[in-house]
């Protein structure tokens, strides 16, 4: 195996170990706290408990996590980094974007949210030419969708 391929394998092994660890912790959290507090047991029942299936599925997730950790154990102490942090930052950036979209939808409505997200998305991706046309399209498209929703389905978009 070449050096770069070996580095890639090491990084992916460490990431897998981390995924397994997160899965095990999440399963323990679900079984120990989440399920007991969020699923009540009916006072009288001759059926199986409503907690059985969530516990079973969380347990299986935990088992898969453990197996993943066991399979990737030899890469824990290998030096070098993985891309886990970059992925986490990307997901956080999406959370910020999604929060802005929800706030805009609630307070400014569909047309403004659609127009802003379209145009901002185009700028973000690197569109630098014919910006006037892009802006016009970003406004007209949500307007057209809103009119379609109203006239075709009698539904008022937010």
């Amino acid at each position: 195996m070449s050096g770069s391929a070996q580095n890639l394998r090491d990084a992916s092994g460490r990431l897998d170990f981390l995924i397994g660890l997160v899965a095990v912790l999440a399963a323990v959290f679900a079984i120990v706290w989440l399920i007991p507090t969020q699923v009540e047991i009916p006072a009288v029942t001759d059926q199986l408990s409503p907690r059985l299936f969530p516990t079973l599925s969380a347990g299986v997730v935990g088992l898969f996590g453990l197996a993943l950790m066991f399979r990737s154990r030899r890469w824990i102490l290998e030096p070098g980094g993985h891309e886990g942090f970059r992925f986490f930052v990307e997901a956080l950036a999406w959370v910020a974007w999604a929060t802005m979209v929800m706030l805009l939808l609630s307070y400014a409505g569909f047309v403004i949210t659609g127009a802003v997200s379209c145009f901002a998305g185009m700028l973000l991706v690197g569109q630098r030419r014919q910006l006037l046309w892009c802006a016009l399209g970003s406004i007209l498209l949500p307007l057209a969708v809103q009119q379609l929703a109203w006239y075709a389905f009698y539904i008022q978009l937010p």
Partner: protein
Amino acid sequence: MMQDIVLHAFAAAIQPMNLIFIAFGIFLGIVIGALPGLGSVTAMAVLIPLTFYMSPLTAIAFLVGVNKGGTSGGAVPAILLNSPGTPESAATAWDGYPMARRGEAFRALKFALFSSVTGDTISDLLLIVLVVPFAAFALQFGPVEYTAVLLFSFALIAGIAGDSPLKSGMAIFIGIFLATVGLDPVSSTPRFTFGRIELYDGLSLAALAIGALALSSVVMQISDLATRRVVDDFAANQAVDKQDRKLPAREFFSYWRTLIRGALIGSLVGMLPGLGVTLASFMSYAAARRSSKHKEKFGHGEPEGIIATESANSAVVGSNLIPTIALGIPGNIAAALLIGALMMHGVVPGPFMLQMHGELIYGLFASMIVANLLHLLIGRAGLSLWILFARVPRRIILPPVLMLCIFGIYLPSQSLWDVGVMLAFAGMGILFTRVGISVVCTVIGFLLGEMFETSLRQSLLLFQVDGLSILASPIAGIFLLLTIMIVARALWRGSRKKATTA
């Protein structure tokens, strides 16, 4: 006698008004199915009131047309944007998008359309011939058999999706766990509702699937373009030469084994109530990959992957009507909507339907065959339009998809909650895909989770009453044995790979 029935049925099917509405239904189905977030079910639900003024045959044929168009229309965003609008098109994107990226978008769309129509036609013919005996077979499926089939499907899907069966298995059970949100199906006890009324019905499948599959894929493409990890060369790659866009009949039918296998898997899965389109498409994909001589090409733009998926998911449309017509049990949501439309027109589906409304049913069968021909013509004409989108640079075409997803999710539920759920699961989709966990598996786990829970709980209750009764089912036995074989094979291959690496 039979000849008279068939002739009458085709005479009714080719009435001009019937043809116009079938064509209109297919057109609407394709357009609505191609929009991320709006599938054939939404289209049918919205269009049912229109059928009130039609004759029963025209109404049902129109809705069947919408369903056929909607199922094949889902392949368009999957191939052109890597953004499957519905879970059943997710496997189409695995090979369709890589094909489109290397400049074969038109050919990929053709493969999808032709496979869809062929699979659909085979399933319609099976429906006509086997409606009564197949319904009797479907009746043999009880909770134990369903549990065994679902376990088999999970093992099969975990083996083909993602980069590791362990991570895919984990993703499936995360989906199953998410499916337990809402009221317990037996005791109606609230589970994980956190006191919110919106969660009593559970998480919306459409919001979860669109967020995790379609939106997350678009966001990742935007992120990759913004950070210059990939180049916006999709439009420039597309074949301009007409010769490169051709798909000769000989080439298409050289995959006849995959086509027929896909259609049969789709028909078989479709006739069992509840299993649905998504499972059929993934089982067919898995079967095609297993039997292929060049397995390594799957997922990198192999036409066989598209053919397997599209022939299977379209075959479900016809075969789903087997339990609907013969037993009055809807095979999926689309079939349930059809039952609603039939009842609106005074026709009660069930075992006596063929006797009491034989003319209508055979007219419907004939309309379905005619609809396939119209589907081919309308779909083929539409390809020239869809391919125009492939020529627009990604930096222009991707950003509006977020707005279309919001529209698609808000329209049926009129709830900002579901929009929030979609955005949240898009975040989960991004994280999962980046770290190599198959988000498709999570969606499938979620989709089949409730059915798995119900059938498993019923099987456990049966076991409490009579421990040996679950061992008496040969169907369940075969599927459990196959599941054990798949898991054992994965373990053996895993240990062999480890030994080779060491």
